[in-house]
């Protein structure tokens, strides 16, 4: 399948009082048509910033996309003026976003209907009445009961899960090619999470859109994503198919992440193994492997400088100096 979105060497920096923060430091990834991608990492690793960067939604100042290409449908989005007409027609029209906080991501003083209708009017040039009818259909589609009455309600009259459904309805309303869901289920309870993810999967299938799920929750991507990118300190440190990441995980960070997730199929009472230490401060990072201070194999690490991504199987890439292949990890740990 053809690549819908190709991001190459994207770099986003923030000028802060403490110094230059390289929030996203040269990441490359691609999304194929109708594919579900997972982008995983801890808080502050740059996953949200990378997604806001592709749509040029980083507030400048203090942030700035300093390098890279975002090729979408053959055109580099970063070449479009940040709030020019071309960029605006992509936002919401071709690529839409679902944000983390359903409680605050909808405008409290406008009805949800108005917030849907204005998008339909803008991108699909629908006349008002048709747009209102379509808005009701969309709300029904995402499972809002009594949608024709609820359309005139305000966001505070909906629960968190319902608001996130409305965000999903907004995201798919203008038949986009790609939906970016930035931690879509972080702020809702577990049962609602599952419902929302199923809903998103249905929408992706039904409207033939691609989906990027940005999350720190490995369980979320395990079930839905076909390919996964793992980010650490502003860079992608491992990427591959779901199987590559979950079964054949290679990077010590990925392995550590998986060890810190409770599993149903493991013996009860077994302790989880946390990754020791804290994520690095992104201000003035030295040019070494960012995971090195926390890496259990650091003493045996042969490499200097930042490890480049290298291919270890068909779709599996990893940025690690150590060659684990053919050797047991216990061998290194000693």
């Amino acid at each position, binding site marked *: 399948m053809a690549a819908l979105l190709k991001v190459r060497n994207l770099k986003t920096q923030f000028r802060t009082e403490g110094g230059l923060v390289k929030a996203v430091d040269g990441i490359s990834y691609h999304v194929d048509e109708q594919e579900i991608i997972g982008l995983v990492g801890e808080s502050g690793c740059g996953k949200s910033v990378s997604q806001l960067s592709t749509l040029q939604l980083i507030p400048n100042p203090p942030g700035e996309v300093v390098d890279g290409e975002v090729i979408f449908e053959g055109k580099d989005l970063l070449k479009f003026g940040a709030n020019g007409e071309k960029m605006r027609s992509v936002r919401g029209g071709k690529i839409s976003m679902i944000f983390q906080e359903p409680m*605050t991501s909808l405008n409290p003083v406008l009805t949800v209907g108005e917030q849907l209708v204005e998008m339909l009017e803008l991108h699909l040039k629908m006349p008002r009445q048709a747009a209102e009818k379509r808005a009701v259909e969309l709300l029904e589609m995402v499972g809002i009961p009594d949608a024709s009455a609820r359309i005139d309600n305000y966001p505070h009259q909906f629960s968190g899960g319902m608001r996130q459904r409305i965000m999903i309805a907004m995201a798919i309303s203008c038949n986009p090619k790609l939906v970016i869901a930035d931690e879509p289920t972080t702020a809702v309870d577990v049962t609602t999470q599952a419902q929302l993810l199923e809903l998103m999967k249905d929408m992706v299938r039904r409207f033939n859109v691609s989906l990027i799920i940005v999350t720190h929750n490995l369980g979320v991507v395990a079930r839905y994503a076909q390919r996964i990118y793992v980010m650490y300190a502003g860079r992608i440190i491992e990427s591959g198919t779901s199987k590559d990441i979950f079964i054949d995980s290679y990077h010590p960070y990925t392995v550590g992440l998986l060890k810190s997730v409770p599993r149903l199929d493991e013996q009860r009472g077994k302790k989880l193994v946390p990754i020791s230490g804290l994520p690095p401060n992104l201000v003035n990072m030295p040019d070494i492997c960012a995971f090195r201070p926390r890496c259990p194999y650091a003493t045996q690490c042969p490499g200097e400088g930042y490890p480049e991504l290298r291919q270890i199987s068909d779709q599996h890439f990893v940025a690690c100096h150590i060659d684990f292949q053919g050797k047991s990890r216990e061998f290194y740990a000693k």
Partner: protein
Amino acid sequence: MGTYIVRRVLLSIVVLLLITIITFLLLHIMPGDPAAIMLGIDAGPEQIEALRKELWLDRPLVVQYGHWLSNAIQGDLGKSVLYDEDVTGFITARLPVTMHLSLMALVLSAVLGVGAGIICAIRRGRILDSVITLAANIGVAIPIFWLGILGIYSLGLKLGWLPLQGYTSPFDDFWLSTSKAIMPVICLAIPSLALLARQTRSSMLEVVRQDYIRTAWAKGLKERVIVLKHALKNALIPVVTLLGIQLRILVGGSVLVEKVFNVPGMGRLLVDSVLGKDFIMVQACILVIALLVLLANLLVDISYGWLDPRVRYG
């Protein structure tokens, strides 16, 4: 929205009753016998007694209040101590003058203040923002009587562009009235304008950082739509509060400007009556000003409901 307005109006009526009680009691809080004060030191006891009867001062307080209130509703607020005329006549002559100037100043400061605040917020950190913010800070700090005197001296006396002082009703001579109103209105407007600009700027800056504004950008909306439709309505909530307070200040506190420009308005009437111990007039002035404040607050409450659905359904 309808029930919300009805609720607000009913509440205002309760407050209105409280206001009338307090204003009525003003007369009795003051030391000494009102009738004796009204007649002066030369009056004999019979005269005072006669006046007490005439003013119903010999009856129980509740009866007095009922009598006063029913008169007040019919527009009779009593006779002035100084002029021996109905105070209602004074008030109907003075109130329109103050309202004319105050409302013009309010509209001017609301439109320019909110506009300037929005421009500052959009152009944050640029030169235009710095210039407007500096001007607003000066505007807040400047004493308006000084500005008025400066205006009279330069624009009136030296350049001769505008009349020095006084007031003419716009219904008598529109152009003369407007030219006389320019300086007082500007003097009245500047402090509120500056305050409103600063408030709008800071509340806009607060709002544009919110998640729903990022959502609006992600939807591909134009900057103009985001600012005027998505941000402004949210940002106006604290601004409207300030606007209500400003109206109150404009109506009650225009004394300085009225003095400087020799405008026969409510502020001057109130101060002159206080100085002349014309307590019936003071009572009437306070009642009218309190009513206006009540009305302003009602309007503010209703605009809250219009701006913020969470208030309306709360």
